[in-house]
């Protein structure tokens, strides 16, 4: 029962040597990011997202005119709206504001409301999901029944009720859209955590004597977050569409000075026959933005999926 000395001294020379010589390792997140950069879908999605965020942030610089001005009101009558020309690239809207300016400023609303509402949904949903998936037992039952109740109400109806109850404001819209997303995140995170709970490394962590809290937050949660992050990206697209939908229904901020794509479609629809572009441009903006987030989300799903790893 003696040990060949070379085994302990230089394992690299023994049979189980690793080919790579680098000393700094590659974590799974970094590996996923690398794969993401190679995917054309991700690049297109990210490009759309970058343009969208840049436009939203730089709207005051990019816009050719002041937003929500009424200086060209006289150019627009019930039967005539000025279309595209050299002075106004996309024409003017029914209130007499420059259409391009309004669209650029509209991106701000979509971005803020979309991101904040998804964050509300993600934080609340992930919190509930972590409770349910991490502790199990009666906590799990209680949380999941609550989530089931939320889920039994159609999301648009839930959002409308919340927005109606809280009054017309952007914040009400964010809470409304966020609340409708809570069940999705909660269920998704819970199920992926339950899958990890019985895995060997969790048992190993337990046998090492780690605290339950450390195991859940430090081991189970990070390994379960992948699908939730993907879902959050995809939900951003849905949220932006829902912002537009709820504004279209008249539930958002009703201050006409604040440009919002959904409300721009509403105001454009009664002149659809004479000036279809009034509804068309904001519609295209919503579609492209949603597409960007969806593309990015889908390629993130592929990059994070362990089965796709090389």
């Amino acid at each position, binding site marked *: 029962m003696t040990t060949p000395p070379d085994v302990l001294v230089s*394992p690299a020379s023994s049979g189980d040597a*690793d080919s790579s010589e680098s000393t700094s390792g*590659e974590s799974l997140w970094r590996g996923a990011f690398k794969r993401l950069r190679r995917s054309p879908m991700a690049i297109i999605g990210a490009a759309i997202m970058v343009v969208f965020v840049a436009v939203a942030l730089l709207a005051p610089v990019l816009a050719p005119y002041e937003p929500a001005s009424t200086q060209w009101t006289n150019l627009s009558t019930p039967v005539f709206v000025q279309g595209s020309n050299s002075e106004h690239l996309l024409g003017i809207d029914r209130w007499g504001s420059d259409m391009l300016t309004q669209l650029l400023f509209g991106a701000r609303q979509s971005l803020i409301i979309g991101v904040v509402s998804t964050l509300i949904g993600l934080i609340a949903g992930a919190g509930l999901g972590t409770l349910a998936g991490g502790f199990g037992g009666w906590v799990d039952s209680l949380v999941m029944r609550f989530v089931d109740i939320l889920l039994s109400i159609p999301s648009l109806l839930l959002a409308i009720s919340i927005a109606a109850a809280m009054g017309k404001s952007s914040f009400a819209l964010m809470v409304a859209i966020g609340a409708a997303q809570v069940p999705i995140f909660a269920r998704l995170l819970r199920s992926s955590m339950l899958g990890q709970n019985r895995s060997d490394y969790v048992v190993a962590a337990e046998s090492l004597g780690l605290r339950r809290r450390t195991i859940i937050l430090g081991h189970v949660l990070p390994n379960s977050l992948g699908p939730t992050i993907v879902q959050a990206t995809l939900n951003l697209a849905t949220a932006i569409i829902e912002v537009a939908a709820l504004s279209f229904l008249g539930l958002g901020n009703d201050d006409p000075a604040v440009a919002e794509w959904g409300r721009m479609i509403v105001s454009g629809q009664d002149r659809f026959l004479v000036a279809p572009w009034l509804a068309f441009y904001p519609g295209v903006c919503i579609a492209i933005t949603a597409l960007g987030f969806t593309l990015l989300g889908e390629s993130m799903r592929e990059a994070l999926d362990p089965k796709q790893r090389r």
Partner: protein
Amino acid sequence: MDEPLLKVRGLEVHFPIKRGIVLERQIGAVKAVDGVDLDIYKGKTLGLVGESGCGKSTLGRAILRLTKPTAGQVIYNGTDLAQLQGEDLRRQRRHMQMVFQDPMSSLNPRQSVETLVTEPLRAHGISFERHARVKELLELVGLPSSAANRYPHEFSGGQRQRIGIARAIALEPDLVIADEPVSALDVSIQAQVLNLLEELQERLNLTYLVIAHDLAVVRHVSDDVAVMYLGGIVEQAPSDDLYEQPLHPYTISLLSAIPVPNPEVEDRRERILLSGDLPSPANPPSGCRFHTRCPFRQETRCDDELPPLRELSPGHTVACHYAEEILDGKITPRSAEEMLTAGAS
């Protein structure tokens, strides 16, 4: 002999079988471990062998309280681990560690090696000099210190198992339970890992419980060997004793299945074949658990009466009513004629 490090008394792990959706009721139990007594002595290695599904892994996990035993005691330093709860149990865990079968799945893929091996120290509030301790641990298990910043998926199977071992010894435990420590590894690497375990035992004065299904592996590392069948220990003896003179019919048939690397001996060798599968632990046979497959079974006593573990020679215990008769050749295996005719043709 001195007082054992760990005493297991009458340990039972029964998993309930439930039926019904709203009103669950228990309709039976899988008796994975059914009344096991074990003594593990300081600085020694106890091997635990048995076929798949006999409950050997469950026994290991129940000792470490990763599975809650339904009955029995696990006594370490005068404390019954089976009764501990919450924080008391967590504090006791530093004295006992586990090495897992599959090193890939037992290491969190998102943690670097450095985090993996220092995590147990942080969990128990042990102060340490991070860099030096990591280097020391990696050196102990034969990994270069450059491994510290890398991640489990960048290593080979054998190296991963070394990381798993480094984690297990980080807390300087008394007892290490190795559950199939090498069965997921290539044969060429198995010996290295086993040698590493032995080297560490000498350096750190460790006590091992090595769970395996490979008889050769167990013989190589163990001082004592316990043979498990269907939730119970059927024979326990010093390693060489057991392999040279097995007493229980189950052990005899297991050992006779090992081929001898000599064609002439191999040709003449009498093999005892086991028929059938392991019975269901949800519905174990009456009497001796092994009687349904035993080639030496004697009418009615084996079917009715559960044989207790008896000490036949110093340190050699066996749970068989007819161990002496079998040893003296007074009882011959029933299917001997069939095997002779099969060998002649």
